[in-house]
């Protein structure tokens, strides 16, 4: 049976179960003298039977669907006598078997592959039938069990609420599952990477060229995984971005909070917030096609040598992207500074700018620092702008007019397209991902801590 039909059938069974539970409760109420004689409202009896009927069956189905492919593959591949040693070869063979089983493969197939394809078809059909049979039996059996167990004294509402509460808790834990998932996926592949490339070489090596040699005698493809040029490139682009975003964002937040009239505020604030809603790929396009040529021409006219993909263009546009982030976070903390502090300073005769510089900013400083740290972590993790505008060459340079590459650019270039999960080239992307995750984690943690601590002061 196809999976969608099975789902539809299960859904139907659940509805039937609900109806049965509901009507049984109603009849029981009628015979025993009103709804008051029931422990719960009739709809809870309906839900109770529906949960018994649907939940275990759906759980079984979900687990089955998640693992059946892997198990079938293992069974099919174990049945083959002389299979290739490499993972890539095995993948190819398995794809061939699958295509043959689906009838897509034309031409000659070896008898061994044909036998495997038949075995695959048998296993898959068997798995589908078994899954349908088991989940339907489970649904009908447990649904019937719940119907039979019905009694007016059954505390259906409490049972239903217990299940619902479990569902709520599971959903709340999704965040933890995600973090664990990120850590596991990045960590495992990174550890495999560090088995072939020593961690010291990765962290302190000055040469990055991830091309692995396909043949032993190939020229120039030794595969060097020294990530320092990527780190410096990331830092340079982020530094340029922060150099733009922090002063502009902070000053506009100050102006909007302290100086601007209501009319200016209602106009300027949303306009600047628009910058936050523009997708990064649009900034990338803008940086690559408008800003980078402009900067190159400008540098040429001043007699400087500039690459068409420069760190400056990417950093500048990234800075523009981060302006609203800095300004809205600083706006929050500046507004949280109590008015009495400002009044005190103004009362002593200081001008408005002196009040801001000597009283408001120092009072809001922890929050501003937290916001800036969050902005830095965002700049480090930003991908599309640098992919489109910063270039691929891993130059170890301090010249912002040259092209540099960043951690995120390399992750993208290493992973776009087909990957083999046994080559250091692919695994290197996960090691870079681990670095990225850890550095942003530390930055976020410090920033959130600082912001939280500061908020408690004036609340």
């Amino acid at each position: 049976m196809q999976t969608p039909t099975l789902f539809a059938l299960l859904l139907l069974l659940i509805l039937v179960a609900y109806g049965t539970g509901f009507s049984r409760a109603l009849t029981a109420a009628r015979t025993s003298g009103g709804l008051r004689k029931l422990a719960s409202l009739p709809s809870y009896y309906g839900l109770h039977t529906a949960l018994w009927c649907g939940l275990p069956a759906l759980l079984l189905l979900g687990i089955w669907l998640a693992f059946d492919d892997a198990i079938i593959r293992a069974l099919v591949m174990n049945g083959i006598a002389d299979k290739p040693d490499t993972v890539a070869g095995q993948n190819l063979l398995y794809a061939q078997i699958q295509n043959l089983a689906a009838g897509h493969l034309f031409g000659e197939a070896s008898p061994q592959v044909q036998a495997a394809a038949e075995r695959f078809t048998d296993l898959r059909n068997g798995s589908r039938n078994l899954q349908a049979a088991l989940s339907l039996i489970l649904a009908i059996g447990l649904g019937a069990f719940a119907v039979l167990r019905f009694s007016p004294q059954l505390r259906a509402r409490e049972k239903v609420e217990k299940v619902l509460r479990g569902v709520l808790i599971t959903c709340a834990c999704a965040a933890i599952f995600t973090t664990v998932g990120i850590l596991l996926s990045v960590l495992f592949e990174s550890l495999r990477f560090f088995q072939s490339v020593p961690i010291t070489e990765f962290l302190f090596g000055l040469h990055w060229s991830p091309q692995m040699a396909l043949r032993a005698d190939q020229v120039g493809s030794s595969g060097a995984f020294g990530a320092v040029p990527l780190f410096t490139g990331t830092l340079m682009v982020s530094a340029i971005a922060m150099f733009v975003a922090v002063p502009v964002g902070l000053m506009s937040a100050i102006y909007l909070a302290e100086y601007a009239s209501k009319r200016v505020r209602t106009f300027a604030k949303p306009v600047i917030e628009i910058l936050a809603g523009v997708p990064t790929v649009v900034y990338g396009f803008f940086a690559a096609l408008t800003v980078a040529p402009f900067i190159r021409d400008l540098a040429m006219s001043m007699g400087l040598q500039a690459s068409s993909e420069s760190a400056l263009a990417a950093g500048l546009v990234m800075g523009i992207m981060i302006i609203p982030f800095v300004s809205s976070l600083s706006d929050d903390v500046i507004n949280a500074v109590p008015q009495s502090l400002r009044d005190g300073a103004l009362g002593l005769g200081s001008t408005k700018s002196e009040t801001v510089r000597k009283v408001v900013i120092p009072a809001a400083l922890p929050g501003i620092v937290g916001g800036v740290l969050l902005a830095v972590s965002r700049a480090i993790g930003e991908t599309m702008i640098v992919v489109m505008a910063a270039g691929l060459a891993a130059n170890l340079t301090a010249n912002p007019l040259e092209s540099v590459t960043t951690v995120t650019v390399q992750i993208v270039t290493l992973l776009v397209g087909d990957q083999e999960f046994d080559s250091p080239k692919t695994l290197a992307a996960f090691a870079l991902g681990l670095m990225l995750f850890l550095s942003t984690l530390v930055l976020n943690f410090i920033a959130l801590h600082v912001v939280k601590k500061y908020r408690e002061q004036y609340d």
Partner: protein
Amino acid sequence: MTDLTQTKLTQQQVRERIEQRLASRHRKEKLFRGLGIASIAFGVLAVLILFTDIIGKGSGAFVQTAIELRVHYDEQVLGIDKVDDESLAWANFTGVIRQALQQRFPQATSRGDKRELNSLISTGAPFTLRDRLKANPELLGQTETVWLTADDDVDTFVKSLSDSAEGFRGRTSDQKAGWIEQLMDSGELKKRFNTTFFTNGDSREPEQAGIRAALMGSLFTLLVTLALSFPIGVAAAIYLEEYAPKNRWTDLIEVNINNLAAVPSIVFGLLGLAIFINFFELPRSAPLVGGLVLTLMTLPTIIISSRAALKAVPPSIREAAMGMGASRMQVVFHHVLPLAMPGMLTGAIIGMAQALGETAPLLMIGMVAFIVDVPGGITDPSTVLPVQIFLWADSPERAFVERTSAAIMVLLSFLILMNTSAVLLRKKLERRW
């Protein structure tokens, strides 16, 4: 101030000193204020430049150059004698177009000239003729006048004529430019609304490339994202806001949510690649996987805004319901949740807008493939609008710049639509207590 008291100045001297410094203090005040205005102006200017740049580059893509030709559906050239699906599939419509061009410009005789002449019309034009003949089988053997899409080089040249008299030549030779001008003068060349852009999938030929496939891919991806992230996000918010005891476990969940909100999106792509594609072996390039990854990414946004919406419901509502004997679950689902729904929906729309614009994690899970067919379901290979923009931005043809900008305009209008509806929804439905 301390130095003033130490040297024991007279009142007169103090006043003089204050007045001396007053000018410079006021100057500083003005400077500070000016810096503030300059920053605001910089931000507003950035918005203006960005939008005028995109619109200026992209507005041309909504029109397309077409050339009028008298086409004779010659049975011999086509190589068919009846109109049915099989013969249409083999019929030589390119030959028909070449014949028509030859008749229009009989002066082109050499091989090179002919090749240049044939490159006036898009390579997709034969399919237009095939569809016409399929719809009207009686046209076989007849002659009719049709407008056919011009090649992208012609399109670029014609559009650039309005900027400068010379125009952007590129691969267009003097002879070809002469023909084009001849066609323009006789009214056999016009610019028409570019429907192809909205009805076609991706193509290597700019004049045949459209955003339909990418739009459908975005739609399917967003549907998966919405179907998963909204219920899970709301459930998580309800638990954290209404049930969770104050303990370490709850703190851990909260720290995790706040932290995930600031994790770079590309890391979610790595997670999707390692877990959904490599471990669970879900299909690559599918909206299903894209939706799953974007769900994990938008979940923190939705949880945080849903919690804010729940917090805004006053405790008196809960107390009143409890007082009437409702269970805790009934209080939440019958009373608090309906009141918090507008706020939650606003958060969901903002989360979806964020998901619609996201590119980087989708590159990791293979949604960068060259997809011509419009996807029909959540497991078909597809791409999404931002990734389509990324792909086109990399294409060397000049005509793709225009289409990239136009696709950006479409994407931005969807985002503006979503964000405005979120703002309106909040204004209209949100209650203040």
